[in-house]
């Protein structure tokens, strides 16, 4: 296996060594540095469409993504995108092969990561061609391959086709020969089946063929369940993700109880059970998150709560899954009025959210919820949150809301709710925001208690637009009991008298806030230490070195004894021997 590595490199590098000429006008270097995809060192080259007839159906790579590596673009001839995409997919097969051979999930992850770049160029024809070249009619995966072809709407493509004409011209003869040879000698491993399945899902999803995608996903999930291979784990997680995504988009969409999301629950739960038994962390984390999302989409809060209390979210799950899990957990807790916990989870979720632009939606949603929870807890969110350029517009309604709550203006509050009801409903924060009414009243009372040493209940009633003085009296009394304000009421004369406000620094509050921060820092430190990776078997290497050293010493000692070596030749500390 390791021997393959050198010849595989060109394929990995996006096949820009491929031999086909492309007219200069098509090159159009964008003058941008190629974007680095995740941790991969390879530069992905996306070439603008050329003249092959396949292009008619290919989605045009938009200009922002049409990065061309400058150094290579000038002299070297270009491969056309179809062949190159095919090469990219095939290079992922090699990754998968290596993942299985070395039993290292990192290669599988690398293959999965490349999906996002392949995705933009993927067409049914490309995929059909890859499938046709990967399977022979007699191979074990052939029925499955047929199903894939069916799903992408190319049922008449016959299997076992040798690498197509373009392929042979395009790519370096050696690479093509190697690919061809490999196929003849070797059956496609299940990982490749599933990987192609995922590509099919992606393709159907991008083409908005939801129902067909859902049906195909069911087949794919069945296939995954029949296989028991640890190297499939991270692929399986992806498959379940798309499976549930399709279910969500199939009409009737949630929250209708007839939506397919309800019907896929047993499958997901079974997958979770299997994943736990097999210690399959990837699938376990993914499926728990999917189930939570599923329950929340139909507002089954108690089920979501039960799921959380009966499962244990894997500790070393992928960061993104942890962030999602924390978000859904925070949401559940917020609905259950457990604001402190909700706040904790949501803060962690926003911090763990990837900072790249592709996850902006998640950060926004989580931040919105976090803001509402903070308000419900009686805190006023930081002004800086609203100033972040990526969030500013999305958070605007919430900004207005915070302003109303901060001032304690009930009238403003009601108008903002009415004006932005649709936004809040879409964000799923509407019911939570309705609960804020009492906070607005409390803040209003607190503001008044701070500004006046004595104020009549009638004035309070007018300022806060409460129904009657009686109502005002009850509300103020409750606020006093809840510790919102320090004041006393006088019933006969009908006023509220504020007590002097104490010094915050005399209380334990600053100490607690300080301690909280220290704890957060220490937790971060611990997590960072845990997240570090160490090369496998490194210690054995050291052991081996030590053994060799000992061996040498022994030899020397022997030589000394035999008098062949002078003691002076050696270091002084050798006396100890």
């Amino acid at each position, binding site marked *: 296996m390791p021997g393959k590595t050198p010849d595989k490199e060109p394929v990995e590098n996006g096949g820009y060594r491929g031999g086909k000429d492309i007219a200069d006008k098509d090159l159009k270097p964008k003058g941008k540095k190629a974007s680095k995809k995740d941790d991969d060192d390879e530069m992905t080259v996306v070439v603008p469409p050329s003249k092959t007839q396949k292009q008619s159906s290919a989605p045009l790579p938009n200009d922002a993504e049409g990065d061309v590596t400058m150094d290579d673009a000038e002299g070297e001839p270009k491969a056309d995108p179809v062949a190159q995409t095919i090469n990219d997919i095939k290079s992922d097969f090699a990754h998968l092969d290596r993942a299985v051979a070395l039993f290292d999930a990192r290669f599988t992850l690398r293959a999965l990561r490349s999906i996002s770049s392949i995705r933009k160029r993927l067409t049914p024809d490309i995929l059909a061609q890859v499938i046709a070249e990967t399977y022979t009619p007699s191979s074990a995966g052939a029925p499955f391959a047929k199903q894939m072809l069916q799903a992408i709407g190319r049922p008449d493509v016959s299997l076992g086709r040798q690498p197509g004409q373009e392929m042979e011209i395009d790519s370096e003869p050696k690479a093509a020969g190697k690919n061809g040879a490999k196929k003849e000698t070797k059956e496609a491993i299940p990982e490749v089946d599933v990987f192609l399945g995922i590509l099919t899902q992606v393709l159907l999803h991008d083409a908005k063929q939801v129902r067909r995608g859902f049906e195909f996903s069911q087949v794919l999930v069945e296939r995954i369940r029949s296989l028991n291979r640890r190297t499939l784990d991270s692929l399986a997680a992806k498959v379940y993700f798309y499976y549930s995504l399709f279910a969500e988009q199939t009409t009737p969409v949630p*929250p*209708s109880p007839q939506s397919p999301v309800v019907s896929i629950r047993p499958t997901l739960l079974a997958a979770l059970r299997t994943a736990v038994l097999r210690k399959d962390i990837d699938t376990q984390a993914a499926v728990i998150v999917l189930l939570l999302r599923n329950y929340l989409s139909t507002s089954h809060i108690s089920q979501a709560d039960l799921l959380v209390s009966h499962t244990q979210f894997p500790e070393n799950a992928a960061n993104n899954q942890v962030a999602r899990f924390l978000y859904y957990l925070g949401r559940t807790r917020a609905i259950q009025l457990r604001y402190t916990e909700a706040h904790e989870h949501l803060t962690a979720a926003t911090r763990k959210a990837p900072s790249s632009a592709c996850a902006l939606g998640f950060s926004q949603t989580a931040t919105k919820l976090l803001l509402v929870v903070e308000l419900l807890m009686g805190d006023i969110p930081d002004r800086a949150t609203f100033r972040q350029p990526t969030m500013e517009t999305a958070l605007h309604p919430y900004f207005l809301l915070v302003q109303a709550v901060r001032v304690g203006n009930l009238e403003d509050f009601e108008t903002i709710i009415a004006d932005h009801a649709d936004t809040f409903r879409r964000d799923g924060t509407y019911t939570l925001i309705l609960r804020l009414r009492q906070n607005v009243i409390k803040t209003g009372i607190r503001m008044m208690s701070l500004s006046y040493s004595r104020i009549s209940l009638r004035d309070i009633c007018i300022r806060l637009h409460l*129904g009657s003085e009686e109502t005002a009296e009850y509300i103020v009394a*409750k606020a006093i009991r809840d510790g919102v304000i320090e004041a006393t*009421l006088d019933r006969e004369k009908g006023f509220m008298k504020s007590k002097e406000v104490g010094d915050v620094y005399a209380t334990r509050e600053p100490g607690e806030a300080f301690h909280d921060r220290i704890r957060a820092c220490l937790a971060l430190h611990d997590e960072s230490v845990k997240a570090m990776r160490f090369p496998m078997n490194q210690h054995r290497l050291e052991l081996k070195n030590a053994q060799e050293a000992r061996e040498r010493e022994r030899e020397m000692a022997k030589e000394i004894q035999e008098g062949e070596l002078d003691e002076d030749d050696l270091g002084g500390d050798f006396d100890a021997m």
Partner: protein
Amino acid sequence: MADRELTTLLTRLKSTPTLPYAETTSLLSRAKLLLLKLNALTPSPTTPPNLLTLARDIYEQGALGSIRARDAAAFTRYVAQLRPFYELQRYSPNNKDGGERNKITGLYLLLLLTQGLYAEFHSELEALSGEGGLDEVEGDRYLGYPIRLERWLMEGSYDRVWKAMKRGEVPCEEFGVFSEILTSQIRSEIASSSERAYPSLPLASTKSLLFLDSEGAVVEFARARGWTVRDGTIYFPDTSGTSAAGETAEKEKELSLMVIENTLGPYYF
């Protein structure tokens, strides 16, 4: 055969709501046995619609009956049993008859409210607002009532709660069952806020404050809560002053313990 018998049972249950609870339960258990024979005790998509409606009506009668008999546990059980029926029927196109769904759900919400199960209350509310708009839910006669009560209770507008329970505002007689519990609940809420908010209160205004009928009742209530009544005025025990000495010492100790823990905690525990 069996379903005809069920229908007669159901009409008997419906026509005589004043039936003693023991009798109702015996009728209900007979009905449930019949349902079991018809394989309709738990609903499934294949159950014929008329049987589904019949079974649902039986359970609804059971739920209402148990509320009248103030049997909260039985009511909760019936609500749980009814839920799949509602889920099945709501989205079947040829069924316009929703049964007493809103009434039962409203009663259930009120029950959760009186038991102080706010988390469940809000989960239920979230589920309701998830399917239809929240405005629609609030506008409903049965569902809007507990939602409004909850909001007022949280806010502290106890007089509104009181008015809602008194002046024929109660949507139907079953809801009245909870009034008693709610009254004592808000009374103790008011009492505990008054203890902190007022230094003293005249008996007469306490009467109106606590919605009690006579001054004698006020004195009794004051005694039960340990308030001192002198010259027609109630003096609340000074909660902050009484055990001050002991408490401060306790606090001091707690504070120093906390400081030690916070300083050493991260390194030694």
